[in-house]
């Protein structure tokens, strides 16, 4: 047994030159957290592109009033699948991938706690999304009821319906197994000396995220199971005639759905809290309060769900409660924003690509947060609800929020993973194009929404034309700009011959265990847990001379 287990130590992982089949089998059967992290990230890039293409169909159709390219049914399928693909196929797997790569290297352990389960969690995803996307080729097409899957509308879905439900079940299993794995790793596998309050914030945010996932994905599974039985087995959960209520589904869905949006953003907070100190060359301000803030956000996220349902006709007391609770979330989130700014304050800032994305995150996520707070004001939400104002809100928190954080993280860690630098000039260009286009895409949507354009429509009144033209131009620009990044990363991963290797500590301001192992790290790291030196973790930075870098270049 043991002998088997350690076989790979002797001669690294199987390479392509060892044969195609063994190479494929390596990826299919791997239990290595770095392999699985890579798989997760590649999968997520693929899904981002698929979801991005779908958003381009949406934006192309919305380029002008009237129907030009697709019929309304297909448009709705695009909206629905765009959201499901981006959220469950893009952002979540990307963060799980980052956790796979970085959590063990940050807390000093050899792998995730349950490596085989880890493999299962990943390999469910390609199957689940094949099921989901195959519905586009079924007669009747894919699901078109919105990613929120409200009955009774979603029950009108044709052939695609069972695949939609089972795909959600599979994604649920994947997320739950992944989350259990990360949580157990963080709770049980920290190296000696790595106490909870010394962990990097990325690990902290992931621990909390894992709890959110474990608590809410089963609820989503329950909700869609009720849809399934309502459609095929005669139950009446969501039909008034039988004593149920369509709105019941919305409660169950959003009990999952609201924590879900924090699942999408908490790891992003962790990434930003890691990157800002590095490039400010100054420790994170208010570490403890950052941890408490994350925990409070997670707690509050369970008692605000009905802010998505202010218009369903809840009793007044419910509306008031959910309004107040939702507004409260701004407090811990504000604490985080303030701490980030305080981290920058009087630091010594440089603006490499990861830093640029992280700064844009702070700026643009906060704008998204502000519009969120506006939505929380129930009487005003009656006007905002189901308009493009909401679409603008959540894309601000999701794209320049979650997606920018993912991009920042990959720029930040890819030299560590591959041992070579990305091209900084291209990176900067990619940043500026992305930043400009993303605002061009989503800022006008605020105005379209306020002026009265409702969501989920393939066509609109003439008055909204200008906003939509800008938005579409921005969307195409943004999408195209992403190829700069993909090329840049591909260079690091596949075409790195003959380029200078980076040192273990890639960024001179970076701290943490991951920077103590070589770049690229060996296939297995920290098989024997390291002893955690005090300074590495609390990162008071006494060991860094901020001028080293300058001197070297001088």
């Amino acid at each position, binding site marked *: 047994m043991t002998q088997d287990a350690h076989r790979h130590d002797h001669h690294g992982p199987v390479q392509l030159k060892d044969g195609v089949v063994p190479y494929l089998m390596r990826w299919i059967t791997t239990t290595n957290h770095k392999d699985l992290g890579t798989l997760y990230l590649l999968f997520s890039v693929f899904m981002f592109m698929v979801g991005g293409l779908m958003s381009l169909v949406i934006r192309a159709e919305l380029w002008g009033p*009237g*129907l*030009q390219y*697709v019929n*309304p049914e297909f448009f*709705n399928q695009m909206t629905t699948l765009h959201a499901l693909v981006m959220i469950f196929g893009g952002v979540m797997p990307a963060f799980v991938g980052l956790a796979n790569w970085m959590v063990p290297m940050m807390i000093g352990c050899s792998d995730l706690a349950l490596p085989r389960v880890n493999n299962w969690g990943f390999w469910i995803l390609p199957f689940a999304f094949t099921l989901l996307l195959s519905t586009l080729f079924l007669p*009747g097409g894919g699901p078109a009821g919105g990613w929120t899957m409200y009955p*009774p*509308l979603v029950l009108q879905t044709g052939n695609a319906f069972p695949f939609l439900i089972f795909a959600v079940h599979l994604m649920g299993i994947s997320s739950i197994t992944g989350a259990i794995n990360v949580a157990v790793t963080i709770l049980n596998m920290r190296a000696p000396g790595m106490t909870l309050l010394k962990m990097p914030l990325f690990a902290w945010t992931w621990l909390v995220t894992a709890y959110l996932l474990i608590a809410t994905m089963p609820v989503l599974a329950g909700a869609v199971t009720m849809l399934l039985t309502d459609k095929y087995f005669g139950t009446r959960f969501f*039909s*008034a*005639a039988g004593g149920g*209520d*369509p709105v019941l589904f919305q409660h169950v869905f959003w009990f999952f759905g609201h924590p879900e949006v924090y699942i999408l953003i908490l790891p992003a907070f962790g990434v930003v809290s890691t990157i800002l100190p590095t490039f*400010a*060359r100054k*420790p994170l301000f*208010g*570490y403890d309060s950052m941890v408490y803030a994350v925990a409070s956000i997670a707690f509050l996220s369970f008692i605000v769900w009905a802010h998505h349902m202010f*218009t*369903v*006709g809840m009793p007044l007391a419910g509306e*008031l409660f959910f*309004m*107040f609770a939702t507004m409260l979330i701004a*407090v811990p989130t*504000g*604490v985080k924003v*303030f701490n980030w700014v305080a981290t*920058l*304050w*009087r630091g*010594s*800032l440089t603006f490499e690509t990861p830093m640029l994305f992280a*700064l844009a995150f702070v*700026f643009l996520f*906060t*704008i998204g947060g*502000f519009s969120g707070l*506006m939505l929380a*004001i129930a*009487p*005003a939400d*009656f*006007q905002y*609800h*189901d308009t493009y104002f909401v679409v603008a809100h959540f894309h601000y928190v999701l794209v320049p929020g979650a997606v920018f954080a993912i991009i920042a993280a990959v720029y930040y860690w890819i030299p560590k993973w591959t041992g070579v630098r990305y091209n900084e000039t291209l990176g900067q260009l990619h940043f500026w194009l992305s930043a400009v286009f993303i605002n061009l895409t989503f800022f006008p949507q*605020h105005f379209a929404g*306020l*002026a*009265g354009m409702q969501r*989920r429509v393939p*066509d*609109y*009144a*003439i*008055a909204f034309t200008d906003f939509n033209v800008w938005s579409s131009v921005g969307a195409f620009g943004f999408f195209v700009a992403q190829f700069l990044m993909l090329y840049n990363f591909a260079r690091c991963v596949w075409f790195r011959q003959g380029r200078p290797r980076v040192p273990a500590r890639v960024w001179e301001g970076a701290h943490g265990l991951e920077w103590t192992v070589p770049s690229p790290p060996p296939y297995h790291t920290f098989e024997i847990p390291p002893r955690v030196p005090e300074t590495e973790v609390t990162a*008071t*930075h006494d060991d860094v001379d*901020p001028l080293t870098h300058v001197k070297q270049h001088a």
Partner: protein
Amino acid sequence: MVKWKQGSRWVCGIGLIFSGAALGAAYDPGHWNMPVGVTDISREVFARHMLIFWVCVAIGVVVFGFMFYSVFAHRRSRHPRPAHFHESTTVEIIWTIIPFVILVIMAIPAAGTLIKMEDARNSELSVKITGYQWKWHYDYVDQGVNFFSTLHADSNRARQLNSGIDPRSVPNYLLEVDHRLVLPVGKKIRFLLTANDVIHAWWVPDLAVKKDAVPGFINELWTRIERPGLYRGVCAELCGRDHGFMPIVVEAVEPDVFEKWLAAKKTGQDLPVGRGSAAGTQVAAADPVSAAPKEKPVPSVAVPAVKPADLSKDELMKQGENVYNTLCGACHQATGQGLPPTFPALVGSKIVNGPAEAHIRHTLKGKNLMPPFAHLSDADIAAALTYERNAWGHDAGIVQPAAVAAARK
């Protein structure tokens, strides 16, 4: 100290840019903002909206001011030696409490408005609104008047995929209906909102009312319109393929005009109350979306059918094509191919090509997802069926209004 001065200059500069953008956003006449509306409540809602907006702008100016100042002044070339501080319980407490206080200050008026909005008591007129895929049904509960309201035929033609019609040439594209909801000004009107198939949402921005129409339940909401005018809205909850094509038009008129309209409606007439009528003069001023060209009263989908005599095949086909494309085509498509499996093709259908009785009955009663169309006139139904029976290469004879009338009995 020098630094501080520079810092404040930056903060002010960025602040100015932001407030500039914000001002532009708030007061640009080109409808970049939420409408102020024409009710007490809508003005209050607008005020809440602007309050929270300005609070966010103010906080943004401060936070981003500090951030960009730091980006500028603490970049390495200007500030090579970073400070080391990384903790202060005092500031953490301060910046927890200040936002909290701001939020409390905002929550109080918001709660007040909300409480008012939810109080539908003492209404003077009740209208029951039922959402269908994809039209609205209005029922003046105590008046015995009720009718359907669907997308106006002009918009409907233009919005078909590759229709070849420029939407810009259609007045009030997607925001006009065949039968408007006529309401009196100055009265507290209660809406009883429900749906027949899936969830819809009834939204008229100028009245600041939006609520979901949930099948099997009734939600209440109310309004008191202050000024006569045309107020346009849309269905705001995804309700299937034509969710974007079920607009709402409220026509608010003086109570006496309303009474006349109602009386006429009871006898089956559609009294035009739009532009040109007593209330019409004020209409354009209050119309938010369309600084429209000529508003003219909209005829019903087809010519109102008081023709007792048989119609010729040509007449039936012509009117039928219109009815079909407006109503049936939503599901069965202009091509008659439907959208299988949900919406069956009519081309080659046994029912369409079979005995007329079954065809008529099917259309009057509906089946499963197909709604009943008994509210249409005999002539409209006869025309639509005739069209179905003779279009797309069919040759199954014509249907006369009399046959429909007979089937109704």
